[in-house]
């Protein structure tokens, strides 16, 4: 079977990243924004895996493990912040948190 060309993987990663980015920008619900960030992280991870497979180097997978770890930490902190935000404002609308501007 023919190997999948690298460009396909990268284009997929690019599309995923752009989708994530756009939804971060347009979503108001803060949980969706968090999810979108996760999508962007996954897109970056995918690009690493593709590159690692292309050059047959292990660093791509190592980086992906890093990204997953970081994402886990980010989600735990992010969820804690979201809980606090909801507790304080009774809403998940990120624009409602604009009193924090300084």
């Amino acid at each position, binding site marked *: 079977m023919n190997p999948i060309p690298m460009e396909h993987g990268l284009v997929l990663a690019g599309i995923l990243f752009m989708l994530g980015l756009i939804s971060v*920008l347009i979503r108001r619900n*803060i949980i969706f924004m968090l999810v979108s960030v996760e999508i962007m992280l996954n897109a970056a991870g995918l690009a690493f895996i593709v590159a690692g497979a292309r050059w047959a180097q292990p660093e791509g997978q190592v980086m992906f493990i890093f990204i997953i770890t970081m994402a886990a930490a980010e989600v735990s902190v992010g969820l804690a912040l979201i809980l606090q935000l909801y507790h304080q404002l009774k809403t998940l609308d*990120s624009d409602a948190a*604009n009193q924090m501007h300084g």
Partner: protein
Amino acid sequence: MEDLLWSIPALTFAGAVLLILLGARISRTAVAIIGVGSVGLTALITIILGINFISAHPTPPYYRQEVGQWFDVAGFNPSIAFHLDALSLVFIFVITFVGFLIHLYSTAYMAPDEGFARFFAYLNLFVGSMLVLVLADNLLLLYLGWEGVGLCSYLLIGFWYTEPANGYAARKAFITTRVGDTALAIGLFMLFQNFGTLHIQTIATEAPQLWGVGTQTAVIIAFLLLGGAVGKSGQLPLQTWLPDAMAGPTPVSALIHAATMVTAGVYLIARMHVIFDLAPAAQLTVAIIGAVTLLLAGCSALTQSDLKRVLAYSTISQIGYMFLALGVGAWSAGIFHFMIHAFFKALLFLSAGAIIISLHHEQNMFKMGGLRKLMPVVFWTFLIGSASLAALPLITAGFYSKDQILWYSLAGERGSFWLYLAGLFGAFITGVYTFRMVFITFYGEPKTQLSHPPGKVITIPLVILAVLSLVGGFIELPHNFGHVTIFSDFLTSTLPAITINENLGNLEWLFQVLAVMVSSSGVYLAYLFFLKRPALQNILDQSGLVRSILQFWYSGWGFDKLYDLVLVRPFVYLATINKNDVIDKIYTAIAALARTFNRGLTQTQSGILRWYMMGIVVGALLIITLSLLP
């Protein structure tokens, strides 16, 4: 013995510091003890040191003591060192001794004043600064004393600061002398540029090797030094501050005019005589300034009605004599006149002060009159001081010092007939205005009631100074008359002796007799006009021309008006136009711009998360685009 040198300025400064710190808390007696005691102790040390110095004949002919170093930057390492030679010894003797008498006198004169402690603190600081100036080993330390004296004169002239006019006089003195000080500072910079040091002795030995006579740099530096001297000594064209300086208490006037401040210029020129020797043009200018000043100030003194202002103009005139002497190269004669002048001018000021307080602070001579019987001690001392000022022959010290200057201004190598003529005419005017003052004040009908006669503390300094004004001249007698040269011999270790024009050598007695006749006729004229036949004054007054000339002289030859028109008015005009500082606009604009940016950027801190994200994205896109561009 020379280890004591540092204590001379240090003691007076210690007195000043003590008075500043404790003055408000201790009794007046304690203030007087600290203030007078510190200067008295200094005078005592000076006399001991002086006797030691004269008897030891040190080689090289000076004592030097290094106390410390200011700093050491790129080879410039001025030391704090004191230098005592014949010249500075004469000066510190006059400063401490006359200063002590003035201090003593002040304890009585200022007794009822609120600022008693403040007064003595300033006075001590003044004497200390002057001592630093005179004892300084290098020009930087000299400049420190120089500026210290300027500051103290400002503080003391404006001592009664509640009166706006006094503050104005103080500022005028400060700013006018500052003009000269700036010239002096530039001169010091140039000296440093040429020699790499400000050490006076080094400059004195190296200057003749570096420059020939009349070298341009030397002439420029000499003129700049002269500028400083002219400012401090109240000579033309910076003399206008001195008559107004009479706003201060009378002892201050005595101190400024006799022992400190105005003699600083004379000292500076004598101290830097090597530079002036190399710059004949500048030295000639010194003589001309002296000659012109002594005439102008003498004429102004003729017309004043305020007792102290007569004395102020007389000081300007007498300092003019000193400049004349320095200018013709008669260094020791100039210093001799400085010393004698210090005695009789301090005496005159202090006597005037005694009159003024006894008459409820009345300074107008025409409201005094007939004081001869009421205040006999003051009358006699004032008369002795006046006789010395007018150089009455044989008995007064002023005769010997002034005669020397007149003789050298004619017969000295650099003398000329015109300088002599100016000096001679000045002597005539001196006789007239001095005895005009005496006759108006002490003779005739009493016009004001005496409040209380002066006490012992006031009369004792007067008597001491009167004795000195009489016998002080006997240490230096003319060649054809005793030929005593203690003073000039003493100074030859520091200052070069004058060479006499041989052609005139045997005519000295002729010119002496001439000088005596001229000054005596001045006195006679005053006698005629103001005592014997006062009607003569009315005849003069009827002529409009004479009256306008007298008015012109009264206003100090219109210098104040001239400066007001040429300098003050344009300056005030420019300042008014530029009230909202043009340069300031630039800085205001910069501040406004920064504030605008700040306002714009604060808008972006909206707190809306998606805006921030957008910012990051746009920024990232920009960076990527820029990095992809070739």
